């Protein structure tokens, strides 16, 4: 197994709509098949992957739901995370209830810029710790894979702990933020996987993500997955033949020929984007385009088998 799955925490990042959720799930399935206990973390979303893999939405998204042998999923929500954190920090339940009712406190948490990001990444950190400091939960994970929000927001998540560490003066928050920051920035424990589509903007964003990660967080893009790559179905010679036959025959034949030419052009454009991505110097793995409007369980399993084969 490649190094990328030997980390304790993996962030799957990329432009919106590139298929991060599916890639995160596929990576999770691959790691689980190799005997690791894996938690898939979604950030306050729609539990789409859970629904695809088990056929229905979880009854409680914030619980750790089992998706497959060795693979669990949860949704991270800042409010639930805050509650867990407070409960673990305050010596008595009475104090916890008091603070919860305090309007000032609610206001501070809601208003302080970046507090939601800090709580989110704090919870993620907690799930990756072997002693589960906020929940004392029974489940200990070898690997936590985060289906991160779209690029800019994902980076903000990674940067939040250091910001708070530097700003919060002296105190518990500062120490906790520092602990989270150290873990998140350690290339031994934390890895980042980029996901791109074979289109200009996602590739550009992935390349820029790589630079921003190194500059701001001190991490490298360990792997980039180019998703939905159109297969090479027609050679340039085929295309020449097809172009020559354009306009001939009945309507279905003309439509079939146009569709083939369009596919050839698109596959060529995809290959250009792949070359751009490879030129950026990080290891790239490709996943083929699935000809369906949505991915089913077997599609995600096929993706995970392909990832396993190349990693």
């Amino acid at each position, binding site marked *: 197994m490649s190094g990328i799955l030997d980390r304790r925490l993996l962030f799957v990042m990329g432009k919106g*709509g590139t298929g991060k959720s599916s890639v995160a799930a596929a990576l999770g399935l691959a790691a689980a098949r190799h005997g690791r206990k894996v938690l898939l973390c979604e950030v306050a979303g729609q539990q789409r992957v859970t629904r695809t893999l088990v056929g229905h939405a979880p009854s409680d998204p914030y619980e750790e739901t089992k998706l497959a042998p060795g693979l669990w999923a949860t949704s991270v929500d800042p409010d639930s995370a805050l509650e867990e954190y407070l409960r673990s920090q305050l010596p008595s339940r009475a104090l916890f209830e008091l603070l919860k009712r305090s*309007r000032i406190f609610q*206001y501070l948490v809601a208003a302080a810029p970046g507090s939601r990001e800090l709580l989110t990444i704090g919870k993620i950190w907690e799930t990756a710790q072997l002693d589960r400091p906020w929940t004392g939960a029974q489940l200990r994970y070898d690997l936590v894979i985060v289906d991160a929000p779209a690029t800019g927001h994902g980076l903000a998540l990674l940067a939040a702990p250091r910001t708070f560490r530097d700003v919060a003066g002296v105190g*518990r928050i500062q120490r906790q933020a520092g602990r989270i920051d150290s873990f998140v920035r350690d290339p031994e424990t934390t890895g980042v996987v980029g996901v791109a*589509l074979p289109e*200009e903007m996602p590739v*550009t964003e992935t390349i820029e993500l790589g630079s921003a990660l190194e500059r701001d967080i001190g991490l490298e893009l360990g792997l980039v997955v180019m998703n939905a790559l159109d297969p090479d179905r027609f050679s340039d010679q085929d295309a020449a033949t097809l172009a020559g036959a354009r306009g001939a*025959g009945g309507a*279905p034949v003309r439509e079939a020929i146009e569709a083939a030419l369009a596919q050839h052009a698109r596959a060529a454009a995809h290959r250009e984007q792949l070359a751009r991505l490879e030129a950026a110097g990080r290891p790239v793995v490709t996943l083929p385009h699935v*000809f369906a409007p949505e991915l089913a369980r077997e599609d995600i399993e096929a993706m995970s088998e392909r990832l396993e084969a190349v990693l």
Partner: protein
Amino acid sequence: MNLLENTRVCVCAGSGGVGKTTTAAALALGAAASGRKVVVITIDPARRLAESLGVPELGNEELLVDPARLEAAGIAMKGELWALMLDPKRTFDDVVRSYAPDEETREAVLGNRIYRELSTAVAGSQEYMAMERLYELHERGEFDLLVLDTPPSRNALDFLDAPDRLLRFIDSRSLQAFLAPGRAGLRLLGAGAGVAMSVLERITGIDLLRDLAEFFSSFSSMVDGFRERARAVNELLRADATAFVLVTTPRTGSLEEAAELREQLSDRDIDFRGVIVNRVHSLEGPEAGAGELEGLLGTDLARRVAANHRDYLALSARDSASLERLGAEVGGRPIVTVPSLEDEVHDLPGLARVGSYLFGDDQTGPA
């Protein structure tokens, strides 16, 4: 085009990766071609698209798209197309500068330790900037139509709440409590204030609370300005002449997100004008006869062409079903489809081509 009739502001809402930026640009181009003076406010456009619009030459200022460029692309222009790219690095500093009642306040806020560290993380800062810009351009009254490409966000309507969120941030009884004299400059409301306060201090650290108090204290003088602006922006978003257009694709996930968007808009008393569905496969079929194909292409190629055709026919059938489901949910509002194009749209002729589908006529087709 139905979607833009009697419209002064068009907001393109939708989740990431559905082609919002291209759609916004194509709508603006089409409306400008038909004679209106239009500005498109883009967020993060693809480099080539930005170049073709002349956008990267701007800072944050709107620029006329060169009529010569449009003519060279074969687009007959009766009106004017202006474009601006919202600067993603633009910080909250400009907002503070515009609302601070005096230099002392401005410097106090900008220099505050908390503010300096956290201002780039102000929740919704990019979203808030988009709203500010939209309002400002609308007020200037120079444009017939403003088209806004909304920022990418997991929750596609974050930008709508940005003015209110900011307002809640600075205009609340909790803030007043912070500003009232009391222990270390802070005072809590409610019973058990003393105990809660010390717990709070233990958890957050006394320095943080004191700095926050100073920050809020400086900020409070700007509340009135923010309140008025938030009210005005909300009014603009709910005006009859403001059209929200949902942009989506036939992928099931996108349709679900579009349904959620609709609900969220309705929760905010905002109507949506219609839906634009991009990347639609619409092959009609039926499958081509094997014999006919072989006669033209030879056995091997014919087989592969037929297999490819079947794949795209299947996709088209599913897209068609998705569109039907969407139709059932939009209560008679227009659904405009744009076919899956083999090339990404990254230049003016490409935009014009998308426009020809959006406007359903030849106004914007290349000459």
